[in-house]
């Protein structure tokens, strides 16, 4: 079992290094920046920045499904007939849409640490407990994302006429199947532009995680800037990398939109 895990992780890291767009065999930095401050290896900062790039993208990609999952169920709860459920979810979205993302991050990071510390002390363990910055970032960004996502999905739900649910009932489908086969495909089509905006916001919010010490793009370029005293170049590179991510995601989203609309008549 251990060997299998080791093999799997080495395979994953091999794949990651091969397709690394910055410092891989056909990476941008390796091809165009060798011999400069951005070269890959011990001399330049290319590999550190490439690592940060990977951390940023993986944080955003890990947060997305969590946020979507919770956002979907919060949206469902928001249109439930049950008053207490609506109230509870309204409190949730009010709080997490109103707080600055940075503050949410700090509250999650330090608050979880305190909670974990007290919990461990209750169990009789007297030592420092540290929360992983990646996990704290994932929780904080996921919570914020789910709050916004629920609003987007709620307005998408409202755009689907009642007749669609009634049609599902008339066909004798169960609730879950109605949702999956009839409502969800339409929901995705309506909500996709809003979700695209949220994804962009999420991508930008990941930069905040550098503050609690996660080595993402901003933190790595910041370290490089401090060491080399070339702050302008390195922060420009950070901006550029985020721009590249934004461009890539807008490409992906326009492809997705075309894909979800393939059933509509061509005009």
């Amino acid at each position, binding site marked *: 079992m251990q060997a299998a895990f080791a093999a799997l992780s080495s395979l994953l890291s091999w794949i990651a290094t091969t397709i690394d767009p910055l410092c891989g065999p056909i990476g941008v930095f390796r091809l165009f920046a060798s011999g400069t401050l951005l070269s890959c290896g011990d001399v330049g900062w290319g590999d550190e920045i490439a690592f940060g790039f990977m951390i940023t993208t993986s944080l955003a990609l890990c947060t997305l499904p969590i946020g979507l999952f919770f956002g979907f169920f919060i949206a469902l709860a928001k249109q439930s007939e049950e008053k207490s459920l609506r109230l509870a979810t309204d409190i949730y979205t009010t709080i997490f849409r109103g707080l600055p993302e940075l503050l949410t991050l700090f509250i999650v990071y330090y608050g979880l640490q305190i909670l974990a510390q007290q919990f461990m002390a209750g169990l009789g363990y007297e030592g420092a407990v540290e929360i992983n910055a990646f996990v704290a970032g994932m929780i904080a960004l996921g919570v914020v994302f789910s709050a916004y996502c629920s609003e987007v999905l709620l307005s998408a739900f409202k755009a689907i006429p009642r007749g669609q649910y009634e049609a599902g009932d008339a066909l004798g489908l169960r609730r879950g199947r109605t949702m999956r086969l009839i409502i969800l495909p339409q929901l995705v089509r309506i909500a996709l532009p809003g979700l695209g905006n949220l994804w962009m916001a999420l991508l930008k919010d990941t930069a905040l995680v550098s503050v609690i010490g996660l080595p993402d793009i901003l933190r790595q370029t910041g370290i490089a800037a401090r060491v080399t005293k070339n702050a*302008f170049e390195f922060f420009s590179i950070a901006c550029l990398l985020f721009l590249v991510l934004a461009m890539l995601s807008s490409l992906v989203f326009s492809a997705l939109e075309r894909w979800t609309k393939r059933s509509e008549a061509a005009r």
Partner: protein
Amino acid sequence: MSHRETMLPALPAPPEAARRFTTSRLIGNVTLGIWLAAAIGIVLFIIDSWSIEKLTKYGPNLISGLGVTLTLVSISVVLGGILSLPLAYARMTKNKVLSWLAYIYVYFFRGTPLITQLFLIYYGFGTFRPYLEAIGLWTFFRDAWFCALLTFTLNTAAYQAEILRGAIQSVPRGQHEGSAALGLPRRIAFFKIILPQAMIVALRPYGNEIILMIKGSAIVAIVTVFDLMGETRRAFSRTYDFQMYLWAAILYLIMVEILRNLWAWIENRLTRHLKR
């Protein structure tokens, strides 16, 4: 033919159907219970670590930090609004070069995180210190507050330009044609017919943008501006008391909620004529 001679006696109301205890009700009650428990926990935590010295020592700091946040946001939103006018114009003009430049500007400021822009201006411009000193701009770029103001202004100008452009372009073509048919000059048509309708569309996005700026302004704490977040961080680093963050959270929530309700009221008031 038979008919009734007397009134039927009044019947008691049918028994009220008992509300079924559904799963959603259970979940709702449980989550409300969790919220209640969290609220009680926070109150207990604050009472537990309450001390009047901390409040008198750090309370005024937090309030002055609140003032810094509000001034920073209001100045940058107003300046950004002014800067957004030529930008929105440039985005909509037929001049290819101008509209491309404006597009690149907007894309850059909307596509990168505010915090990297802030670092780029605050730390990055420090690299050009000799040049900046030569043209006398170093005192401006040395001060974190001015750098934050510049960054926020440039950033919100990009967003506001997009809001303005979207709103102006959302006014239907018929309105332009109608004003042309009435023989109105283009300028008057724009200010009296197009712009008022566009501003109603733009109202809500503008409110959202101000809220985003208030929330986004928390990051200036990282470049040593003591706004609400900065003061909170300073107080936390001195006391290691977690309730400082809770106070800041409450203050931010109050600010955002006041603004949100104010905006809902304004919008309600301005769209009276559209309601039926």
